[in-house]
């Protein structure tokens, strides 16, 4: 099938098999390997991307379902050489170790702050509860997102 998906603001047209998963479309067709694959069952969330601004697990979305839609991956977070606040937060607060869950966590964090600019710890934990991290015990991910919220709050003032 011929599909056109806008990824990080760039339209991409490809002929794909109907069964092709979005995660493989991004990784193999477009070479955007920042989106990872981890479990096939929507449990781990390392494949999380934003579809029209909403986090989805790209291992359980077919590429053809993204036809005509806007996808944001981790590669799209940095704008004009400026890191997103959530990216800075993860560095500041040691919110990552092996880095495998990080892209998905960043995209969920970005969505959370877009909808809840000043989330408390409970809201952050709930927002990332569909994603696994095996390294950090989540503590520093929570702190990273709080850091990003504070930084953006500061910038708004």
């Amino acid at each position: 099938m011929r599909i056109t998906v806008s990824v990080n603001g760039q339209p991409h047209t490809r002929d794909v098999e109907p069964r092709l998963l979005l995660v493989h479309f991004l990784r193999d067709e477009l070479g955007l390997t920042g989106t990872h694959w981890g479990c096939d069952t929507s449990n781990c969330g390392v494949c999380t991307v934003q579809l029209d601004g909403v986090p989805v697990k790209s291992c359980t979305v077919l590429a053809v379902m993204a036809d005509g839609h806007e996808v944001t991956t981790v590669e799209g977070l940095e704008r004009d050489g400026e890191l997103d606040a959530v990216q800075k937060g993860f560095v500041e607060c040691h919110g990552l170790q092996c880095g495998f869950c990080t892209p998905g966590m960043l995209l969920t964090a970005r969505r959370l702050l877009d909808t809840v600019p000043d989330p408390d710890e409970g809201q952050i934990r709930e927002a990332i509860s569909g994603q696994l991290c095996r390294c950090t015990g989540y503590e520093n991910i929570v702190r990273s997102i709080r850091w990003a919220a504070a930084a953006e709050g500061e910038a708004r003032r």
Partner: protein
Amino acid sequence: MSHGRMHRKEDARFIRGRGNYTDDVRLPGMLYGAILRSPYAHARIVSVDASAAEAHPKVRAVIIGQTLAGLGLAWMPTLSRDTQAVLATDKVRFQGQEVAFVVAEDAYSARDALELIDVEYEPLDAVIDARKALDPDAPVIRDDLEGRTDNHVFDWEAGDGERADALFAQAEVTVAQDMLYPRVHPAPLETCGAVADFDKVTGKLTVWCPTQAPHAHRTLYAMVAGLPEHKIRVISPDIGGGFGGKVGIYPGYVCAIVGSIVTGRPVKWMEDRSENLMSTSFARDYHMRGEIAATRDGRIRAIRVKVLADHGAFNGTAQPTKFPAGFFHVFSGSYDIEAAHCAVTGVYTNKAPGGVAYACSFRITEAVYLVERMVDVLAAELGMDPAELRLRNLIRPEQFPYRSPTGWEYDSGDYPRALRLAMDLAGYDKLRAEQADRRARGELMGIGVSFFTEAVGAGPRKHMDILGLGMADGAELRVHPTGKAVLRVSCQTQGQGHETTFAQIVGQELGIPADDVEVVHGDTDQTPFGLGTYGSRSTPVSGAAAAIVSRKVRERARIVAAAMLEASPDDLEWADGRWAVVGDPATGRSMAEIALAAHSDLELPEGVEGHLDAVTVYNPPNLTYPFGAYICVVDVDPGTGQVKVRRFVAVDDCGVRINPMIVEGQIHGGLADGIGMALMQVMAFDEDGNHLGASFMDYLLPTAMECPSWELGETVTPSPTHPIGAKGVGESATVGSPAAVVNAVVDALAPYGVRHADMPLTPANVWRVINGNPFRTDLAIP
């Protein structure tokens, strides 16, 4: 100076999605592999017909056991000197075992073609319950081994049994408890896989693979495949978590290599999550019976343990050769005990091979869990507070170096101080008072204490090797003319932040910023030989190597600086990161100045060749012994059996902390592991050997909702044997935390007369424990 909190150098690529994991490797003309696996736990292979798969238009090769047998590659050695089938030829011995390998133009087609392979099996009775593996009528799993008539792997013991028995015979109090440390899987979020590229023209094989031990892999490939070792390059790129599950060589790696040799093209194979959980290295599976002999006032005198160790279908544990039960014999723990004895029997079962993985420090997880549970059982018997009982028995600071009853020499520590600090941070007395109030209201609140001593940094070459390769690690340090440095190390990070920590070590020793030090690792063509990263050994071994090679460079720099200053090297002192004439700091020469001089036309003293570069191999004189005190607070819902971890206080002492931020991160992760293993991660088997935890829908891992906000404390007792006083920390929290969680749950259930319950304490299990009907967590629910 360079030690201290510092943001990680590796983060820049990871936050941009620019990491380079094995599955991100893409080579021109690359093919894709997939493995056909056995649906049976135990079956004879009658026939394998791959003709339909071979006829698939996108398939380039199908490799079956017989193909490999023709090449002498159907079996490979394990890290415990057993053999393991690469692709089954005679029988399959666990569900998920590798049977055939398809190589195709794309990953989806390779999977499609698996469906076209016709394997006829003759199912056999399976040995699933380890406790029945040695029954006289048990089916013999390893009939491939000459003369084998049972499922016995080894018997091993440590300590002084007679002395322990004598103390038990005269003891005022004895307690005994059966307990299971169930099979668990480390489940890194990146599964295992490999990209193999064999260049027929040069004869060079390059393998990208998320291995924690790239050099050991290269040597083993040379031994297994007969390829010359200098023609093998193993590249371990970024690794998405390892936790010990990425130490060994899996059949898929060998298949990818054979696939590349056969097709002449690069071959990528990545396993899926079910394959990962079903076939790669599990951990634990220790059926233990512990006993303690004590005085009535709570002085522990002797401890005995009998272990039945389930090793699966092939003995594939990774540990120093001399120790088939790993370092389990450190089970006398943190206590000053007169006598200790353990006897371990290993058995084969129809389950995946492995056994040493998941941040276990070579079975110290099992040992610590055993002793910490036993101390709580004793506390219950004596009606004594478990923290008080521990304080009464902990090794005292003045006893270090402490010779344990099973022969370990603990290097340094102040154990009571760590436990008291944890109790202060937790507000222990207040918690006990709250618990009493809640109990009076019928609420189930539990407080669990654990204390652990680890033995990490394997290890002294005289005693420790894997397949004959001594566990010493190399380091090479180059200092460029402008004073920037490149450190090459044999260990391999899986998220521990080596690129940062090791740069800090070098920076500290050379007086240059850590940002001026590049750390190269994970490529056998670029780094010196060494056994890699596991058992918390990177900082104790490679970190020591990094410090020592830096000091060698510094000594060379002293000679060059002396020539620059027209002084004798003996007249120089190292201060504030410069070599200067004693008492005249104005003469100080920085490493950058000295490095430039070392490359210049400066007249160098006799015996100095120029440049500052150095190499070293670090052979640890002893292990290092990090320790810690943990307190966990839980609330249990009596109606559902749901356990909620309310608080977790962790005091760790890992000696000198090079980068405290990274150390704390390591501890956080290990604490989450402890909660997962203690409460959630079920890896049970039904009577046919079906794996009931083969996806993340069944094998539950902790999320941010199950984890509390960790409360950390620290004490610092430097290691006397490590050049910078550091001990390892990567596995400390995984080792120490499960016992704290289980002790807390059992404490909460005390009103029901419960003294023990096996992990994982899922709601169903806890509810049944409350109702006096616990089930075996290693088998399907009866």
